[in-house]
């Protein structure tokens, strides 16, 4: 019998703690598929900071770091500087990367730190129970913006990919979405390109993945996918924001 499809070797068969309809599982799997296809299973090192994905080490079978909230790019910097030939990636949520860790991601990109950030943007804090994130849409209700995000009080959502793309150290920046199969395939190509950028030692790379958080959005899995398409993508346009030859 010929095997035509199998689970990536470093994707652990563990019951995930993620909620039904959450796209973290898809993103994890894409990372594992890409690392395997690039032949980097033995050289991959992941950093997962505080957030829903802090337990990523239970699912991804590489040497892993758990990191403090927002600090994954700094931890990855230390890891990469010691072992420059390892494939070092962070896996961060939007509260982590765009709020408390804004300084670390900006300066890792500015330094052209040769690491890859996998950035899950679901417009909300997931693990702590659905509070407003810097990426929360104007008008979006959360547990700390119960009347909807009011831009006059708490400003506008941050478009991280556009912001980081302005930095000379950023070599590859793309925003993709995980809402259907064609887009998941695009997301995989983007992750592969980002990791290849690191292997080619071109500098900092990041893929922003628009993701669902049905539980904290108060939506069913299907409604969540619809809302991502109808409301998130207009705020966060998909595409390649930076690609250095």
């Amino acid at each position, binding site marked *: 019998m010929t095997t035509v499809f199998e689970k990536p*070797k*470093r994707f652990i068969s563990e019951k995930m703690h993620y909620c039904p309809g959450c796209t973290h599982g898809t993103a994890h799997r894409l990372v594992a598929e890409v690392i395997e296809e690039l032949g980097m*299973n*033995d*050289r*991959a*090192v992941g*950093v997962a900071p505080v957030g829903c994905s*802090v*337990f990523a*080490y239970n699912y991804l*079978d*590489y*040497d*892993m*770091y*758990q*990191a*403090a909230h927002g*600090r994954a790019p*700094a*931890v*990855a*910097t*230390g*890891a*990469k*500087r*010691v*072992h420059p030939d*390892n494939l070092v990636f962070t896996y961060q949520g939007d509260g982590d990367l765009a709020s408390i860790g804004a*300084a*670390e991601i*900006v*300066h890792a990109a500015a330094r052209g730190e040769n690491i890859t950030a996998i950035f899950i943007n679901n417009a909300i804090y997931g693990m702590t129970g659905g509070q407003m994130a810097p990426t929360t849409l104007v008008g979006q209700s959360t547990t700390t913006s119960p009347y909807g995000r009011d831009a006059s009080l708490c400003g506008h959502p941050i478009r991280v990919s556009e912001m980081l793309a302005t930095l000379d150290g950023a070599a590859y920046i793309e925003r993709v979405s995980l809402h259907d199969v064609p887009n998941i395939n695009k997301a995989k190509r983007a992750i592969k390109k980002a990791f290849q950028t690191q292997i080619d030692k071109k500098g900092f790379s990041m893929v922003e993945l628009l993701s669902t958080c049905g539980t904290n959005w108060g939506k069913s899995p299907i409604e969540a996918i619809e809302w991502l398409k109808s409301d998130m993508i207009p705020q966060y346009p998909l595409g390649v924001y930076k690609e250095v030859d």
Partner: protein
Amino acid sequence: MSKVLMKGNEAIAEAAIKAGCKFFFGYPITPQNQIPEYMSKRMPQVGGTFLQAESEVAAINMVYGASGAGARVMTSSSSPGISLKQEGISYIACAELPCVIVNIVRSGPGLGGILPSQADYFQSVKGGGHGDYRLIVYAPASVQEAADLVMESFEVSDYYRVPAMILGDGMIGQMMEPVEFKAPKKRNLPPKVWAATGWDGKSRKKAIINSLYIQAEEMSAVCNRLDGVYKQIAKNETLYEEYMMDDAQICIVAYGTTSRICKNAITTARDNGIKVGLIRPITVWPYPTDVIKKAASKVDHFLAIEMSMGQMVEDVRLAVNGEKPVSFYGTTGGVVPTPEGIYDEIKKIAEGK
């Protein structure tokens, strides 16, 4: 090797390089700037890495990353910067990562001033970050001792997988003294099989550099295991100096540069017939509690002297445990005590005032 005249901060940096430290992550703050400056010059010469981080917070997390990858790594800062590093230090302690953190203390609270102070005793010795942990904390009293203790601290930190701190003050950092770099006693260090170096899936256990234990029993087990390590450190690594203690009736307890000023005052006191001695903790954690406790049965009175409003004196009182009176004399805010000021305090005690 012959002696060279060096500034304390530079001697600390050179000692780290001589100890095999290949990675340094720092951020500017006075009065420790010569450490990152020296490292930026020297690290490229020895094939090491110097990186100026975007903040103290980032620097300590780079230390977490580099130590987790198996490297000898150091960072340095001064009081407000150490406050910022405390979260990362707590993570490092829990993840059992060896490293050396240098704190060249300035005055505070707040932004304070840049002059010498010992008001960081609490945040250095009493676990300045969150949770149940300890650092091994060395308090050098000279540039030579600073260099010796930096080298020693890398060995000890690697041996126990507990982060070490060099607790200096602005004086140690800024003054120039002759220094000779002597290799420390080599320890039989186990290979870092726990480090995240990239894993082939078979030759060892997968490395998880971690401080997250969501189950109470797991977190409790980690804290208990760490406590066992701390007890070993307290048993094996406590360092102190006893000075003129044989016939002493008054025992001064002081650490760091303050202890040197105390020695001048002790000379004056002895010239005037007052029998004074000194116990100088060299490690302030582990603290030489037993030495002070033993002295309590011999001397009449203790006098703790610090450049603070009274922080280490609490450890003196715990050690003396009410057996003898414990007085305190301190100067703070960047004010350095004078031998005369200390002698006046000794005299008051001798005269029963």
